[in-house]
């Protein structure tokens, strides 16, 4: 299957987004817009301590406040849990603890201890202040990097704080290569904790109908079906008695792929209440408790021959899981090591990954969760180039895979094919005019101005075929009027999935795009699907729509041929109109065909069923579909204040043929800006006692329009073997950008001998690096 059925009229064009009228006029329906009769509101009492024993909780005063319906503590809600596991991991995967409310001990600042339910959120918050919790402080394990050696345990049954570890062949195997190599370069880069921080915080409304035993949930989620499965298991009710609805979700970035502990509390509490229960997370709660990501470090090492060719590479990687990761980080975290070789020819190597508990907010998925592979590799390559006195571009050219080497597998066995790293690399450098930039940089240095350029090239698995993600369904209903509704699982958080599905369906049927609409995000009416995540929605929905629309298109052609009295293969059906050369000017509209299918069933050709609706399900035979890109960034660093100003930002990407270039570029822009934020601004920081210090947007700094340059995008098109040749593109921007920015800053500061080992590169940290380098050089002299 290389193309969707029918002619591509809309696919590949910059079709305007069908979501925009409602989203840009403020008329979207986010979970906080859902109002139910008699609805109650929840507010959590959260731990102010990183680690403490709970000696007692006094809810009496809070319970008596006017307008308060209930105050729940762990013993009220936690025994209601029947089963709790995520479909992605399955029931038998060794999971991490996940109590709805803290039991006996609090394990991070923000840990939910009690839940107040009241007539409105104001009263709930007033009551929450009246809940008295008696804490006995315990020494917290704040720094994951030293947690493995701590005598204190985040979870008493996990001494040593190790969640799990995975790795490739033993490191010792590689020692002879490193010992005999002419050059060995190693470094450790510590990456700070980030929050995914979607514009819409978390939120859920749960409404229990006791008589029918039915639960209805409105959620801010990337995966309504996973919320349904999870809720059914949690409460021990049948899956088909749970309905989950999501209309608009204001950003997810991985954080909303799975329900978390607060969602569990709302689901459990709803069964004890007479009306719907709403919880909308506020921004402070979000920065305290919605989860952290990217917090990790690794010693990366490469051996080179005298020509700068890589002989071997290793990564010794340690990742922070926080207190309550969602889900257990082992399965997803191993991708860091597996992808560490990137798009380079590296004959051998290995990795080790350890995942460590700490008394901080739990790790969650975040756009390109394995991004550290690129950070470790690409910053090491720049350091190596400086040590080997080679231009970093030249070093990469000597080692980067080219198309004629494909298919191939990296040293961990990851099978690469249908990628174009060299093409994106050269395209991006050409867009910059790399040689001209180097000349400009030299002139600027003479004037005491410090410019730098950094690159990052990566390969990325998209649309992976885990058991949870390997299929996607579509139902298409052509209504009697000829109007088309296409039903897919959805989970769009701003990903333009409605536009994508409408474009794909219009082309696959041959319908006019204005006749096609889509229904997504309601488990009562849409086929089962895993939702948005893992850069899967483009290829997977394309597969599901192609299969379903193909069947309907055949029926459309058969009905038209019968009516026009020509053979089906002579019928053309484009933009909702069937014609045939042999029938002269005569033709049929989709409305006329639908009218026959529903109201003139006697006029249907033999063997064609009445009606025009079909369901189909695609399952991918591909373990994963590879995408790749190169990011190139230039910057100027003010060596007095440490300020970094980005000058140009270029992305060359290969996501195969584009369904909608505007959507592709929007995904790249958004991801890239998040990576810029990670390199320079965002820091979900804790002090030594485990107190979070960035709990508002005055301290958790997101890049804004004034900090980000115009992002220039170049496209290379290598079709994948999947549906339409499409590849996923949702996550890549967030993988490639931070390493490119870090490399650009390091390049700007190269004349000072600066070595970057900690992120983010804040102005004060850059001044610190300059002072360190000066001190080091003073000693050397």
């Amino acid at each position: 299957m290389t193309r969707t059925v029918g002619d591509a009229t809309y696919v590949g064009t910059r079709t305007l987004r069908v979501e925009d009228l409602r989203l840009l006029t403020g008329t979207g329906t986010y979970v906080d817009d859902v109002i139910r009769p008699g609805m109650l509101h929840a507010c959590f009492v959260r731990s102010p301590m990183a680690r403490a024993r709970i000696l007692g909780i006094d809810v009496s005063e809070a319970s008596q406040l006017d307008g308060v319906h209930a105050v729940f503590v762990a013993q009220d809600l936690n025994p209601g849990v029947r089963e709790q596991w995520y479909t992605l991991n399955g029931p038998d995967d060794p999971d991490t603890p996940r109590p709805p409310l803290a039991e006996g001990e609090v394990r991070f600042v923000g840990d939910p201890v009690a839940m107040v339910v009241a007539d409105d959120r104001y009263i709930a918050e007033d009551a929450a202040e009246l809940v008295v919790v008696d804490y006995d402080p315990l020494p917290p394990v704040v720094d994951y990097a030293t947690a493995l050696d701590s005598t204190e345990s985040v979870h008493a049954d996990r001494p040593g704080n190790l969640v799990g570890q995975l790795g490739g062949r033993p490191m010792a195997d590689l020692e002879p290569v490193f010992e005999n190599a002419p050059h060995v370069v190693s470094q450790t880069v510590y990456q700070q904790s980030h929050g995914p921080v979607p514009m819409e915080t978390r939120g859920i409304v749960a409404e229990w109908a006791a008589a029918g035993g039915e639960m209805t949930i409105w959620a801010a989620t990337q995966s309504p079906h996973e919320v349904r499965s999870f809720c059914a298991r949690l409460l021990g009710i049948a899956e088909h008695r749970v309905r989950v609805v999501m209309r608009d979700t204001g950003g997810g970035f991985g954080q909303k792929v799975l329900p978390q502990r607060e969602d569990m509390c709302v689901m459990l509490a709803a069964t004890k209440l007479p009306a719907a229960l709403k919880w909308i997370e506020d921004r402070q709660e979000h920065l305290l408790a919605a989860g952290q990501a990217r917090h990790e470090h690794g010693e990366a090492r490469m051996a080179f021959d005298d020509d700068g060719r890589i002989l071997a590479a290793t990564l010794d990687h340690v990742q922070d899981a926080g207190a309550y990761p969602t889900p257990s980080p082992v399965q997803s975290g191993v991708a860091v090591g597996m992808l560490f070789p990137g798009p380079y020819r590296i004959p051998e190597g290995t990795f080790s990954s350890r995942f460590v508990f700490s008394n901080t907010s739990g790790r969650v998925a975040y756009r390109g969760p394995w991004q550290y592979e690129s950070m470790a590799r690409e910053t090491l390559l720049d350091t190596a180039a400086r040590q080997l006195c080679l231009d970093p571009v030249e070093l990469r050219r000597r080692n980067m895979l080219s198309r004629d080497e494909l298919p191939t597998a990296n040293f961990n066995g990851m099978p690469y094919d249908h990628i174009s790293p060299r093409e994106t690399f050269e395209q991006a450098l050409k867009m910059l005019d790399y040689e001209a930039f180097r000349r400009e940089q030299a002139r600027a240095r003479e004037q005491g101005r410090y410019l730098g350029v950094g690159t990052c090239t990566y390969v990325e698995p998209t649309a992976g075929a885990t058991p949870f993600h390997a299929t996607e369904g579509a139902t298409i209903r052509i209504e009697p009027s000829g109007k088309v509704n296409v039903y897919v699982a959805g989970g769009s958080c701003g990903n333009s999935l409605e536009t994508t599905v409408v474009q794909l369906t219009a082309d696959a049927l041959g319908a006019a795009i204005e006749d096609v609409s889509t229904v997504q995000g309601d488990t009562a009416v849409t086929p089962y699907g895993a939702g948005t995540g893992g850069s899967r929605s483009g290829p997977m929905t394309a597969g599901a729509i192609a299969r379903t629309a193909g069947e309907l298109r055949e029926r459309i052609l058969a009905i038209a041929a019968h009516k026009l009295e020509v053979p089906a293969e002579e019928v053309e059906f484009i933009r909702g109109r069937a014609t045939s050369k042999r029938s002269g000017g005569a033709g049929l509209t989709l409305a006329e065909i639908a009218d026959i299918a529903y109201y003139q069933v006697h006029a249907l050709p033999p063997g064609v069923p009445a009606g025009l609706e079909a369901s189909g399900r695609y399952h991918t035979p591909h373990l994963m579909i590879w995408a790749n890109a190169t990011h190139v960034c230039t910057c100027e660093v003010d060596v007095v204040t440490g300020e970094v100003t980005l000058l140009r930002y270029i992305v060359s990407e290969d996501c195969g043929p584009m369904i909608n270039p505007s959507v592709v570029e929007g995904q790249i822009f958004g991801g890239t800006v998040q990576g810029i934020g990670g390199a320079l601004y965002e820091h979900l920081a804790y002090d030594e006692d485990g107190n979070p210090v960035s709990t508002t947007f005055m301290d958790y700094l997101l890049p804004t329009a004034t900090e980000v340059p115009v992002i220039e995008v170049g496209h290379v098109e290598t079709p994948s073997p999947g549906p339409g040749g499409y590849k996923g593109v949702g996550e890549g921007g967030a993988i490639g950008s931070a390493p490119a920015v870090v490399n650009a800053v390091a390049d700007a500061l190269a004349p000072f001998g600066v070595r970057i080992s900690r992120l983010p590169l804040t102005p004060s940290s850059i001044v610190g690096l300059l002072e360190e380098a000066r001190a080091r050089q003073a000693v050397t002299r």
Partner: protein
Amino acid sequence: MKPAPFTYHAPAGGDEAVGLLAELGEEAKAIAGGQSLVPMLALRLAAFGHLVDLRRLDELRGIERRGDGTVWIGAGTTQATVQRSDEVRAAVPLLARATPLIGHFQIRSRGTVGGSLAHADSAAEYPAVALTLDAELEALSPRGRRTIPAERFLTGMWSTALAEDELLTGVNFPVWKGRCGFAVEEFARRSGDFAIAGATVALRVDGDGRLDRCAIGLFGLGATAIRARGTEAALIGSDPAEADAEEIVRSATEGLDSVPSDLHGSAPYRTRVGAAMVTRAWRRAVQEALHG
């Protein structure tokens, strides 16, 4: 993020407002643009039983050139109004130049001159400008009106000379005449953030090109905005074109003993940035005074 309960009052005049403040005591807080107060209430970092809204007090709004060589700006005038004012641009250039550095345009559309001064954040621009230009602040209380020099108005981090029942009604900014130069420089993590550190410089040269008036302000580098008075005194009578900028910076930033330290920068880092801002502001102000 829902504030604790409070009673809302919207007095129609200044006397009524200060009467309410006097009557309600420490349970009451005046609210103007709300750009600092509302987030603190929403986060429940602050709670007041009563909010006295100043929005109906037209007497607090306006920009007027006064006969005594000052420009009066009502405390309730928004920062956006100041930014648009030709009068301010011509007569009080330092204030005009500092205004766009305050937050974002949405903040300036609601935030007021008096609110910024009365909130007295040490990293804010207006307290530093008022201090640098020797502005005089007008206050109203049930006991009547009084005038407070900026120097005495700013008493510490988020604290001023205003009594609990006293309302800031306006500010008189002196108009500097002659060959003057004004500059404000600040460094913030992102445009619109509170400054890591900043500096204001106002100076005037006489017919011989020598300094006869000089003010150097620092912000973000102590509990309040600060004047480098020793440095200023040493510069009077000198030729600014000949001045040793490094020596000015050294003298202006030495002895800073309460520089804040947080996630965005340690005290030594802020001092370094403050020094750089003094250098940059000094050079620009001298350039303007000597060459227009």
